[in-house]
């Protein structure tokens, strides 16, 4: 039960970009995470079946109807806002206004809980900044 409530992490896709590891610039790490709640109607249906009363039956029927309208290839659980990850380009520039970004890692993952899930897009990287000249002694 404790394990179930803690949530399982499922990695769907990961990709690395070019890494500029030259030493003449300082690299400031940043992370962007956008997410949306996914709902698993099949799990709602299964849980409702276990209730074995009228409310449970109605909920199960409703979940089964919804499931019929949610057919197609899935990564994680279905979500209800498809635009949540569209702003990552702006968010990267917000974190690194100079646009000197390197070592980008794009991750698509799910944090799975009973019935619901967190459908996550995570981008990590480094913003390159010129090193300040060492203070004269």
């Amino acid at each position, binding site marked *: 039960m404790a394990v179930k409530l803690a949530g399982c992490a499922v990695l769907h896709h990961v990709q690395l970009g070019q890494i500029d590891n030259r030493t003449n610039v300082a690299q400031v790490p940043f992370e962007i995470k956008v997410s949306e709640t996914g709902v698993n109607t099949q799990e709602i249906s299964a849980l409702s079946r276990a209730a074995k009363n009228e409310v449970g039956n109605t909920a199960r029927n409703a979940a089964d109807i919804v499931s019929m*309208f949610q*057919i*197609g290839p899935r990564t994680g659980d279905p979500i209800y806002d498809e635009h949540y990850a569209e702003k990552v380009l702006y968010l990267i520039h917000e974190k690194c206004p100079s646009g000197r970004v390197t070592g980008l890692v794009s991750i698509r993952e799910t944090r799975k809980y009973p019935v619901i899930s967190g459908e996550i897009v995570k981008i990590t990287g480094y913003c390159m900044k010129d090193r300040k000249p060492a203070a004269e002694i």
Partner: protein
Amino acid sequence: MMRVSFLFLALSVVGCAHSIHQVQTSDFIPYAPIESGRVVKGQAEQFAVLGFVFDTNYLNQAVDQLMAACPNGTLTGITTQMSTSLGFFSWTNKALVQGLCVDHQN
């Protein structure tokens, strides 16, 4: 009453579920601040009934659209999003590509 409210809830979410499969970010080379260019995008869709689709050319269309929006510039920091809008025994595959169009390399 409970049954009606459940069914209402069910119908209210019908036909608007999606799945994001992948969000990929390209390198940001040439490096450029967002003010030095403009964000352009290309998007394309493909409707599928029970998976009966015979090509994936919609992706190429999205990329062609992106390039057409930036005919003379360099496209940097390209984000590619693949998703599916789920439906009643059918679905719509979607591709969205966005990038920063920089006319003069920095």
